[in-house]
């Protein structure tokens, strides 16, 4: 048994590493298929605007080399891999040359974590509870209302919710600002900053919460209904336990595990959709950084952000896969 667990872990970690490496390779070559490179583009732009060449050819080449654009694409790829996996360095950015990419990402990351974290926690908690409740009360009016709304809305993209919320709450009713405008220099611990932060992040958070709550509702309802048919619940009911205790101890507890796995799996999709929400509100997170990076074709920053999000999703999945057999006795390794 010990040996089996050991092999399972080793196997899972190897798959993790291969997937990380492969997905990153795909991203690298896909981005390099875009014609041109940031340095040449920048130099050409200056030439066109001021009609003179700002630098000698050698200077441009040195600049390209320091950005990692020396040699053919495979040399670049090898160098980049060495830098990332051996030195944990994502290379110099072009948006803030020569600040390393990991530094500008870490500077922006707290904002994105704040936005996504808050939205995910709120929607996950509300969605799971509402879904378990709907599943528990299945067939009743309240269930069919919740279920129908959830069905209709769960696939609507976050960014459309964002656009409509701006229309409604920033223009028709002028309650919240359409753009994130918060002085980042202010004292973070002051009450004024907190109020401003709430005021400015309300719409971005709400547009993420609004849609994903219904997604969680659907999956929690599904899980709950499959639990309701299980023998142990019948037995608990036969024992005469109170309804609230049944719902809490027997239904919600058991629905939590698959819901948590769903959370780990969905992380990547949340990140994917939230870039555009950050863009719409000009939120100072990673999505905004990505916008600058794409505007000047800053490979290193784009790759860094994408790599970070791949890493997050894969690691969350790995952790889930490794602890799942420990929590859920129904899963036996090696079967």
């Amino acid at each position, binding site marked *: 048994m010990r040996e089996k667990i050991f092999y399972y872990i080793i196997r899972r970690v190897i798959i993790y590493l291969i997937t990380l490496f492969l*997905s990153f390779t795909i991203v690298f070559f896909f981005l390099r298929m*875009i014609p041109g490179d940031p340095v040449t583009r920048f130099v050409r732009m200056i030439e066109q605007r001021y009609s003179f060449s700002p630098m000698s050819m050698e200077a441009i080449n040195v600049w390209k080399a320091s950005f990692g654009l020396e040699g053919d694409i495979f040399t670049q790829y090898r160098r980049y891999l060495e830098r990332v996996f051996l030195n944990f360095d994502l290379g110099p950015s072009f948006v803030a040359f020569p600040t390393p990419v990991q530094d500008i990402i870490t500077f922006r990351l707290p904002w994105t974590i704040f936005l996504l974290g808050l939205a995910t926690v709120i929607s996950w908690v509300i969605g799971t509870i509402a879904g378990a409740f709907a599943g528990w009360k299945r067939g009743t009016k309240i269930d069919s209302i919740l279920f129908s709304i959830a069905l209709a809305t769960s696939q609507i993209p976050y*960014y*459309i919710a964002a*656009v409509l919320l701006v229309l409604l709450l920033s*223009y028709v009713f002028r309650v919240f600002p359409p753009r994130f405008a918060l002085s980042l220099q202010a004292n973070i611990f002051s009450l004024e900053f907190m109020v401003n932060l709430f005021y400015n992040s309300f719409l971005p958070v709400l547009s993420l919460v609004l849609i994903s709550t219904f997604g969680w509702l659907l999956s929690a309802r599904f899980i709950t209904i499959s639990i309701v048919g299980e023998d142990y619940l019948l037995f608990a009911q036969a024992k005469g336990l109170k309804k609230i205790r049944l719902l809490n101890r027997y239904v919600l507890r058991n629905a939590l595990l698959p819901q948590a796995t769903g959370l780990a799996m969905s992380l*990547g999709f949340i990140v994917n959709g939230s870039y555009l929400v950050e863009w*719409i509100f000009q939120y100072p997170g990673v999505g905004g950084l*990505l916008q600058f990076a*794409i505007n000047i074709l800053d490979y290193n920053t784009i790759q860094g952000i994408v790599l970070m999000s791949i890493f997050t999703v894969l690691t969350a999945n790995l952790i889930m896969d490794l602890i799942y057999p420990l929590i859920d006795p129904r899963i036996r390794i090696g079967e």
Partner: protein
Amino acid sequence: MTLVFDLKKKMLSSLNFFKRSIIFNIGFSIITLFIILSLAEPIINGYILKGQGVLKSGTFDKYLPPSLEHPLGTDHYGRDVLALLLASLKNSLLIGAISGGIATLIGVIIAMAAGYLGGKIDETLNGVTNTVLVIPSLPILIAVAAYTRLNLILMCIVLAIFSWPASARVVRAQILSLKERPYIDLAKVTGLNSFEIMFKEILPNIAPFIGLGLTNAIIGAIFAETGIRLLGLGPGEIPSLGLMINWALAFGALSLRHYHILLSPAITLILLFTSLSLINIGLEEIFNPRLKKITGI
């Protein structure tokens, strides 16, 4: 005689198909309406625009309010909003269908190879599917759209590259469960080779799940396409619902209180995504009777 009988039976069974899920029917009706509108687009727009191009600016006065002549008014450039909306809807559906079709084709081929051949091939192909699945495609697609001149077909192909894993996963899971059924063993005993089993025995039975994969892929493709166009990227000569939202935001339709210019593409998109999602769950309800108990409305 038998032909007539067969035809009648087929028609009856397809009628039954529609009776089996209200959810599916609602979604299907909305999509059908959208497809009819798209097909009628040249006629309606010919009438509204009287031969002018839909993107040509200054055809009418700008910011006209909704009226009988212009049911949704005109925009910043004096273009008829209804005409733009119809043309955009057509393009969004077209992009969704082509790119979803390509993605599903790739997905089904990979899933069939993986699911049936099994073993090392399955492991490898499943690994590749999961690898592409974790890549956040939107940033990459946006970067590509920003620097490459895409036409409609090229755009569809680029979108399909990242949306095939969704359908591959659905189909693979189904093949894995079909493989264990007794009738496949029977086919093996009869001496069919795996190629024949794949096409004669498995493919007809996974057809509904290919439909499921297709709606998944279409949702993914339209999601990404709209996101890219929302930023004002992609081919400017091809109007799209996302691009209309971009225009509405960029030209200040909101500050001027011309809300309907934003609302018309936004509501159309909501209906589009809602109906696709209903079709998706409806299909699952029809072909997965165990679920019928669960959805239960």
